[in-house]
């Protein structure tokens, strides 16, 4: 909620206010030596008053940190999306191995990423039920487009993904004949050209 839309444009290094009155949000930083908030990006300055979630009976003390509004600078260049634990991503399966499948994350939420991120779906994260009886090759094949959620930042090489929900799993896949398959149930997809049924962990749309 914005109380007033500021039409002030700032460049890096410009003073936005004192740290005792403002909190530094995105695009701003606090210089510790003189407790001033400066801008770090070029763009429009906007003030966001803090959300009031406490009951209005007792006004908070004047130097409580929650009372300060946050000042932000929105730049014009949008950075590519970065996966965050808990977000839903669209990934393409690259390799299917005995205990995991590796996938390249292409979209985070509704935004596509600038450069691909690597993700791994471990065999215990494919389904919610009967996770010890999972067969990797009847869940995913290389080239499938899956909707997954980010479990965690993972290790140095890849994010950890999970498809263990009804609405997560294979969204689109190509059959061996080359046609886009139609989902039949949560474990099967059928090729429209040949009628062949293939096994996948299908997402419930």
């Amino acid at each position: 909620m914005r109380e007033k839309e500021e039409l002030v444009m700032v460049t890096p290094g410009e003073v936005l206010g004192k740290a005792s009155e403002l909190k530094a949000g995105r695009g701003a930083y606090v210089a510790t030596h003189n407790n001033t908030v400066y801008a770090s990006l070029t763009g429009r300055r906007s003030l966001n008053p803090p959300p009031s979630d406490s009951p209005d009976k007792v006004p908070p003390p004047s130097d409580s940190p929650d009372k300060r509004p946050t000042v932000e600078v929105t730049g014009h260049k949008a950075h590519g999306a970065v996966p965050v634990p808990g977000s839903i991503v669209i990934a393409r399966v690259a390799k299917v191995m005995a205990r995991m499948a590796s996938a390249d994350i292409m979209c985070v939420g509704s935004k596509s990423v600038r450069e691909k991120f690597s993700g791994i779906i471990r065999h215990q994260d494919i389904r919610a039920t009967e996770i010890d009886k999972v067969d990797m090759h009847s869940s995913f094949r290389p080239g499938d487009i899956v909707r997954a959620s980010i479990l965690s930042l993972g290790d140095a090489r890849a994010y950890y993904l999970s498809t263990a929900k009804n609405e997560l799993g294979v969204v689109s896949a190509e059959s061996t004949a080359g046609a886009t398959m139609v989902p039949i149930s949560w474990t099967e997809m059928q090729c429209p050209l040949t009628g062949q049924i293939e096994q996948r962990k299908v997402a419930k749309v």
Partner: protein
Amino acid sequence: MEFVSPEGLRLDGRRPMEMRQIRAEIGAVSRADGSAVFEMGNTKVIAAVYGPREVQNRSQQINDQALVRCEYSMANFSTGDRMRKPKGDRRSTEISLVIRQTMEACILTHLMPRSQIDIFVQVLQADGGTRSACINAATLALADAGIPMCDLVTSCSAGYLNSTALLDLNYVEDSAGGPDVTVGILPKSEKVTLLQMDAKLPMDTFENVMQLAIEGCKAVATYIREVLLENTKQLEYRRGV
């Protein structure tokens, strides 16, 4: 040779405290995340910034901040005679290091851990003050790329010839053999991030020359801020905001 005439005019008609005409353009390289062309008189420099992006060489990855890399090169056609080896020679390596350290001082690297920011600067036309023009171009390119900085870095050079302090030396004045002081500052806090001089100067003269260069830096900073604000307004009009 006389570099300052008795009337007080330099070889190109400027006064001793006058800078050359500066011109900047943002967004020249569309593929880069941020780019800028910066001209100081006849010196023309183009800078392109890529980043923050994933570190290409895993062994150089820093876990709590961004890695800043810089490469300075001169085009073969930038000087009078065609250059044989535009990059990799000692001068280019030194200037690359200098620009990297200067820019690293102002980028808030702790906000982008495990990533890499590449700054490529190329001199298209060299007429003295290439180091300063490169730093100014790199600042504009970084601001265009939206990389958070604590302040803009601007740079200017000054010298001392015929007992006069001269601002913004061109190639002829630079190769005269007199001292050449290059200063890079953060204009809002007036903190110095770069200070280089070749040759010797007595201390009080040095203070005058350095103060002159700092004034030049502040003038460049005012111009750079105008260019950035104008560019942002243009982008907003185009987006229909």
